[in-house]
């Protein structure tokens, strides 16, 4: 008896610690096309998780498999401890905000939000209170009698969110929910989504192709490309230490310089310049590699230990910063200089310049395969 009890508690504690969603070697094939290729993934309870990638990278398919709208060709999906791989959507404790919102046009806003609760047998006053509470949370009180067609895009978006959240699901899935909104509304909704996620404490899984949106909202981001996860990490990890050329160029801009590993924490560029990198970044790599530096980490003066000589080829003033393109022995390098002083800075096209940056802001990725061909 005692043994059994212990194992029971043991399971419960483990249940709290395990990830909310776990994908184990999930593959999805549509005829000959592999949309999702052997993806394993664990999403922490209560986190705001983003699946980020270009269109066709498999992020939406991954989300749809978690929601139950697609069956994986191989692998298993867990919600908490439960294997939900074969379960239809209506048997999963997961709700979705669709890209098109998919509000029921024949039902009022109130009935749209109440839909899930009614299917679960809730009636009367508790239902009414819960729906109104939720409409307040998304800042749409008193609109319950309207039809979806009478609301603006932003309002419909909030209704879609309320309709999903009202069920207090274990996980909320968001399929590019802000894609149809204009820029200003999108920025506003990003902050609001983040606030609501903080308030309700539900795990959010958010699919987007907008790296800025993912960085603004998510605690953890999985960058996907061609059906695989390229890198998983917090926004600053992904930005400061991208592990592949794809991640480096998909999240913000990067200068990638070809070279070869030349000992502990040193890479020799094609023109012979030696660049110092964090020893961990090289991570035992030998042979051809590429060195990456973010344009805003480069100074247009000597002073840091990594240096390159070059000539300014182009200069464009864009208000908050000035963008320079400098020609060096290993190719052109983009530099963003913050305009902290009054007026544009002094360098002009044709000026000789020394570029320098710290080894700490240098990252290393595998050699650039596709460009070499």
């Amino acid at each position, binding site marked *: 008896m005692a043994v059994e009890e212990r194992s029971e508690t043991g399971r419960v504690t483990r249940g709290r610690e395990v990830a909310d969603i776990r994908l184990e070697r999930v593959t999805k094939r549509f005829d000959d096309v592999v949309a999702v290729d052997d993806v394993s993934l664990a999403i922490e309870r209560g986190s705001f998780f983003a699946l980020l990638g270009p269109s066709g990278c498999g992020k939406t398919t991954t989300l749809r498999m978690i929601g139950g709208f697609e069956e994986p060709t191989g692998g298993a999906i867990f919600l908490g401890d439960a294997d939900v791989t074969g379960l239809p959507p*209506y048997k999963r404790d997961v709700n979705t905000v669709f890209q098109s919102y998919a509000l*029921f046009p024949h039902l009022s806003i109130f009935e749209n939000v109440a839909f*899930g609760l009614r299917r679960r047998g809730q009636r009367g006053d508790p239902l009414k209170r819960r729906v109104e509470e939720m409409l307040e949370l998304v800042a749409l009180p008193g609109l319950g009698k309207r039809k979806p067609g*009478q609301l603006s895009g932003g309002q419909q978006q909030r209704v879609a969110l309320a309709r999903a959240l009202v069920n207090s699901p274990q996980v909320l899935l968001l399929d590019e929910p802000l894609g149809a909104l204009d820029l200003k509304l999108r920025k506003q909704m990003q902050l609001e989504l983040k606030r609501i996620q903080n308030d309700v404490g539900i795990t959010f899984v958010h699919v987007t192709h907008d790296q800025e949106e993912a960085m603004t909202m998510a605690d953890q981001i999985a960058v996907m490309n061609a059906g695989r996860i390229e890198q998983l990490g917090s926004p600053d990890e992904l930005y400061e230490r991208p592990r592949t050329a794809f991640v480096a160029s998909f999240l913000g801009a990067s200068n990638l310089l070809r070279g070869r590993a030349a000992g502990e924490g040193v890479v020799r560029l094609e023109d012979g310049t030696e660049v110092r990198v964090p020893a961990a970044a090289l991570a035992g790599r030998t042979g051809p590699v590429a060195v990456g530096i973010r344009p805003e980490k480069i100074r247009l003066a000597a002073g840091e230990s990594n240096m390159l000589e070059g000539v300014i080829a182009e200069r464009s003033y864009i208000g908050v910063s000035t963008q320079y393109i400098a020609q060096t022995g290993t190719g052109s390098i983009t530099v963003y200089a913050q305009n902290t002083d009054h007026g544009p800075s002094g360098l002009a096209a044709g000026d000789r310049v020394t570029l320098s940056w710290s080894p700490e802001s240098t990252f290393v990725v595998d050699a650039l395969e596709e460009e070499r061909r």
Partner: protein
Amino acid sequence: MSIAAEQLPAPRRFDLSARAVAAARHHLLTLFAILALVYLLLPIAVVVAFSFNDPVGRFNFTWGSFTLDNWANPFGFPDLRGAVVLSLEIAALSSIAATILGTLIALALVRYHFRGRGATNLLIFLPMASPEIVMGSSLLTLFLNYSIPLGFATILIAHIMFNISYVVVTVRARLAGHDRHLEEAAMDLFATPWATFYRVTLPLIAPGVLAAGLLAFALSVDDFVITYLVSGSDQTFPLFVWGAARVAVPPQINVIGTMVFAAALVLMFLNIAFQWRRSPKGAA
């Protein structure tokens, strides 16, 4: 006189005629519209008027005198009642059956990809494209080959068959306009497939299904060629009219025709009233 006429200010006359031309141009479209409507409605008006006629002789072609007898006794002609009842029965049953089957086919064609989908699309279109005489005679051949007795059942089968195509086309048009994520959203919100169908899919396509049903009913009541070939000795209303016309045209035919027309009008006005009531007043 001629002098006086010449003394009229010429520019003014020009002005007048120009204005007349402008007015004519302005109202030309209205005029044509009225003429077209008259062209369309005149035969109906004649039918309605002659339902109140007390004809001289057996043919209701010339105006005798006004009477309400025909309306007091609409089935006062041998076999007429039976023909009307048969027509209504066939129309009701065939439109219900065709609407159910056609709606399901339309759902399958729009929502699912299955082997033979292209072929189904083509076959559904065929009955609408092929001449009725071809369809009627091939059905007759089929029934005769299998020695199925002609009558109620064969008329019903034939009507269901040609009605399905129209139902599929009407419902499919309605389905195509809807976001297929709506059904996923319902399932996502814990609705079983059955609940998804009657809470979301069916309410959304209901106007299309209703329209398809009414269209099927009308086509069935109206059909002559196919019915004639497969009816055996049974008589629907169109067959009765055609048969009667050889020996007599009783004014009761006009009465029934007027009734059908009136029923259609009432339905149409009900629809307009319904739409008007449903239109969002809050948005204005």
